[in-house]
């Protein structure tokens, strides 16, 4: 690379890099790499990715081809690098050429990304011109997805368009050697957005004053609305029991756990003990909420009755839960807010009412959050796309998404087989939809519950926006088969002349795991789909299903025996009803001393008996989620569910606290070619243990063991009959880490290949991916109708 060195051979290559390589500082990276290697040539953005031509010594060209993927910037995701030789032109110097927008578009918008270490260093450096700037960002970090208003991804098409760059920022933006080269959200104190603290009846504060007062208010126990990346949060000091209780009351939150934001890992000492994989997630660029087992959980899994945990966070943050949902700051504003003197641990919960979309609009925030908060810490950079915090947990060292949203959306998922342009509308609660075409699917962030008109509107806006940034024009709609789903009615109403295909709920769950593991569908899998409720082809409510499935179709290998679900969703919120239904189905008496009998008010008990007898508003169900509810109630763990899956989560906590135990045994009998698993012996076993004075935890542990044994037995039988050695686990029940681990361990010991979710949630948040795989594969033949 020294000038004057004799040039013996010179080579020129065209290098095409595909994947997530735009809006992530890829061209400056190429520029720097080429210059460092002494190469001449150019680099440009095209609709397909980044295209470079490099010329120089062969070993330098080879090093470039290797390092262009290996050393890519942190936010880039290189899908492929292709290169071909060209005739050398004798060119010198390296240039960044203007974008070429010819040809088909496959532009990928990056997700929003946590503030990087370089920016944090500047944020803390009094000599830096962005010292304490709440909106500091660079090509390696900052808002992306939530500020994009259109394509191409340029400042003019973001909500930063209304903040013209100052000369200093403009210089950095234009300098290929700068970390802020073409960083669309670049800003500084001189030209960027500003903070404001709004307090009812008091003058508005801005800048440092706003920040200082906000922190003072938090320390004093106030509840603040804080504008973040994808929406507003409600924040209060997590160590202030009164403030937490007030927030819970104002938000009508029931017992549902609040997410926490901690200043740093040190702040979590005594609360949780994250392992290496968890630390990586906590500190990584996506910054999801990570569900972590608490150090000292509630002793019995019962809210209210637990001993005071050794952690300093009040029990009210997550009553009865074995986990704490924790995240670290991901915007500069968060870092400034949580810095010493604190508070160093905040409750940070989405600012919305249950099931409604998160509040993003400032006027909405002032109007709708007024009854909830004491003040608003806000700013003037608009949020264009709502995006909730993601939630993940680590199971057996692997990431298990619980909610895939900020930091992940709208990253596309590669598909194992090409699909027609399709909109898969997902499920009704925790709705997430997907657009897909050819080899990619774009999953939306978490939208909300489709009961709500505001959610339906948010759904339409999100579909339009994702369509605009991906260019997918769906010619086909994939929906669930449930006749009462609002998502289905909504899709049909808006379908126009486009075809609408229905996909059975649990088939979609299994197809979603298959797709994320890259299965092309050539061989069927044994699909274990355990969830709360899904509409079955026989009109019953399914949810404890073992299917022999590929993308084309499925047959039902095994399922839980049907029991009546008295009052449908009423049983879901009052697990004692399901427990009583199960006891009755098992022929076991409603003895007065049993927890579900004690929990059921006398008049309700009388009516319930008749209701079950007369099968009045009693849908038959094979739901595994409801079986968890029933056992949770029977064991005296949870009688009323104030949030989704509360009874199951608390049962898992009780089992964990107890440790493994020999499982109860389900009855298994063949009916019409399928194995029917009868939980009656499980209930009989649990009753015997309870009568003998066994602790709650033992019943919980033996039940978990029973379900894992059942899965193992059924899968072995399936392999004998069908020769299938791959098992896919899906459905919301597999958010239960204890069960997921136990099933996986047993199946692996039996020689099965076990597929679990790593990229999309096992719950209905992953449903859309499965729907589109079943309904829209380009190849003919489909199980969808």
């Amino acid at each position: 690379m020294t000038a004057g060195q004799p040039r013996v051979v010179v080579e020129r290559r065209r290098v095409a890099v595909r994947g997530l390589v735009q809006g992530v500082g890829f061209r400056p990276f190429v520029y720097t790499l080429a210059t460092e290697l002494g190469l001449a040539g150019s680099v440009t953005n095209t609709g397909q990715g980044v295209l470079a031509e490099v010329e120089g010594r062969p070993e330098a060209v080879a090093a470039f081809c290797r390092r262009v993927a290996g050393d890519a910037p942190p936010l880039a995701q290189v899908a492929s690098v292709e290169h071909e030789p060209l005739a050398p032109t004798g060119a010198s110097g390296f240039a960044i050429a203007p974008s070429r927008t010819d040809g088909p578009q496959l532009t990928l918008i990056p997700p929003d990304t946590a503030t990087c270490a370089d920016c944090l260093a500047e944020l803390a450096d009094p000599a830096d011109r962005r010292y304490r700037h709440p909106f500091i960002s660079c090509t390696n970090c900052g808002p992306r997805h939530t500020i994009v208003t259109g394509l191409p991804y340029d400042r003019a098409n973001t909500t930063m368009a209304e903040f013209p760059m100052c000369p200093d920022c403009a210089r950095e933006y234009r300098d290929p050697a700068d970390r802020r080269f073409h960083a669309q959200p670049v800003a500084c104190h001189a030209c960027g957005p500003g903070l404001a603290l709004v307090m009812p009846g008091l003058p508005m504060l801005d800048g440092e004053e706003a920040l200082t007062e906000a922190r003072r208010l938090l320390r004093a126990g106030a509840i603040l609305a804080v504008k973040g990346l994808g929406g507003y949060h409600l924040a209060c000091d997590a160590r202030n029991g009164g403030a937490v209780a007030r927030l819970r009351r104002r938000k009508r939150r029931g017992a549902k756990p609040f997410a926490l934001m901690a200043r740093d890992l040190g702040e979590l000492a005594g609360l949780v003990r994250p392992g290496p994989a968890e630390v990586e997630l906590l500190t990584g660029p996506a910054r999801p909420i990570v569900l972590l087992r608490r150090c000292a959980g509630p002793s019995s899994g019962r809210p209210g009755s637990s001993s005071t945990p050794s952690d300093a966070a009040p029990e009210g943050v997550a009553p009865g839960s074995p986990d704490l949902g924790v995240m670290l700051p991901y915007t500069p504003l968060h870092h400034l807010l949580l810095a010493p003197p604190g508070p160093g641990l905040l409750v940070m919960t989405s600012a919305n009412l249950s099931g409604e979309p998160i509040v993003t609009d400032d006027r909405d925030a002032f109007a709708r959050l007024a009854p909830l908060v004491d003040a608003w810490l806000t700013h003037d950079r608009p949020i264009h796309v709502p995006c909730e915090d993601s939630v993940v947990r680590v199971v057996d060292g692997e990431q298990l998404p619980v909610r895939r949203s900020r930091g992940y959306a709208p990253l596309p998922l590669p598909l194992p087989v090409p699909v027609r342009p399709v909109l898969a509308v997902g499920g009704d609660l925790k709705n997430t939809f997907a657009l897909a075409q050819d080899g990619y699917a774009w999953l939306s962030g978490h939208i909300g519950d489709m009961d709500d008109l505001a959610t339906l509107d948010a759904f339409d806006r999100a579909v339009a926006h994702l369509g605009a940034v991906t260019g997918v024009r769906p010619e086909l709609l994939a929906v669930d088969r449930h006749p009462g789903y609002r998502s289905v009615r909504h899709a049909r109403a808006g379908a126009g002349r486009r075809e609408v295909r229905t996909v059975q709920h649990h088939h979609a769950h299994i197809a979603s795991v298959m797709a994320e593991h890259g299965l092309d569908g050539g061989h069927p899998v044994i699909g274990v789909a355990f969830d709360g409720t899904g509409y079955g082809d026989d009109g019953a409510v399914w949810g404890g299903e073992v299917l022999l499935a590929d993308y084309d179709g499925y047959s039902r290998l095994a399922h839980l025996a049907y029991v009546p679900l008295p009052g449908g969703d009423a049983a879901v919120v009052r697990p004692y009803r399901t427990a009583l239904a199960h006891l009755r189905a098992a022929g076991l008496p409603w003895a007065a001393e049993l927890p579900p009998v004690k929990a059921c008010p006398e008049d309700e008990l009388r009516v319930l008996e008749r209701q079950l007898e007369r099968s009045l508003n009693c849908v038959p169900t094979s739901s595994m989620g409801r079986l968890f509810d029933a056992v949770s109630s029977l064991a005296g763990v949870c009688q009323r569910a104030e949030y989704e899956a509360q009874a199951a989560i608390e049962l898992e906590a009780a089992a964990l606290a107890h440790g493994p135990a020999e499982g109860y045994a389900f009855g298994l009998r063949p009916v019409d070619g399928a194995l029917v698993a009868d939980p009656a012996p499980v209930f009989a076993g649990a009753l015997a243990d309870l009568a003998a004075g066994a602790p709650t935890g033992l019943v919980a542990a033996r039940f978990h063991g029973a379900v894992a044994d059942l899965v193992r037995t059924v899968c072995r039988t399936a392999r004998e009959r069908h020769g299938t050695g791959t098992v896919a686990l899906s459905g919301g029940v597999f958010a239960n880490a204890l069960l997921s681990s136990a099933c996986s361990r047993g199946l692996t010991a039996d020689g099965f290949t076990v597929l679990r979710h790593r990229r999309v949630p096992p719950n209905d948040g992953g449903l859309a991916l499965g729907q589109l795989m079943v309904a829209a594969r380009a190849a003919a033949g489909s199980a969808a109708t």
Partner: protein
Amino acid sequence: MGHGGGGAMSAELVENVFAPAFGGRVLAQLGDSAVLELGGARLAFSTDSYVVRPLFFPGGSIGDLAVNGTVNDLAMSGARAAYLSCGFILEEGVETAVVDRVARALGAAARVAGVEVATGDTKVVEAGHGDGIYLNTAGIGLVPAGVDIRPQRAVPGDVVIVSGEIGLHGVAIMSVREGLEFGVEIQSDCAALGGLVEAMLAVTPDLHVLRDPTRGGLAAALNEIASAAGVGVTVSERAIPVPPQVANACAILGLDPMYVANEGKLVAFVPREHADAVLAAMWAHPLGARAAVIGECVTAHPGMVVARTPFGGTRVVDLPLGEQLPRIC
């Protein structure tokens, strides 16, 4: 419940089977009664069949229902019922004393409603082919000049009024039929609404829509109006009068009171300028003493009914299906 449930399935039968088979301009209105021009008079004409079990229940009987149901269907066009026909379909072996009790209840109800039973018919079917007694009634009445009440006339700005507490009939029937004891006896609200409608029309002939929320309850009635008129309907959950015993029974059984049948209630879509006066007139009538404004007709979300929850949410209220299936996954 199935095709008789008054939900999406019955609507489907009318739309896809009966309307095409019969043709005709009048049936295409799909209202509860038809308004016909005959010899210079405007007549409302309606028929309904009654297959309720049990025949007698707290607050009424199949005889009361057969009169009030048809009288109310006419009243929902603004017509005061004048004459009824009455067909009895008896199952072989039904006791004469039972037939007598039903007939006397029917006669008494007719007198209260101010309608005359002008013609009738009796058939007997084999034992096992009926539930004791089925009744069919048809009725005619005059529609006053200047009155044009149809679901299609709902317009944004209309105020939505319900004449009283909802859910009583459905819960009363269910509790006796299924032997459910809720602690307090729940009485059907079965009543003839002709007089109440007359009192409302005395305020203004310009009532836009009247509907008796029978099968499928308030939810079905509001959805039918919203889709017939192509308007949105917004109601406030808190404003809907649900008696505590109904709320309790529904909570226990897992039902939504908005979907439970009524037999002596109406919903009215009234121009805003007349709403206060109409409401006052309703309060002055015994059958409207608990009348309440529950919502309004809007331009947003056409064809949809939306309930504002006490927590500030906005829940979509769908047309009921045959059965309410759980959706929580």
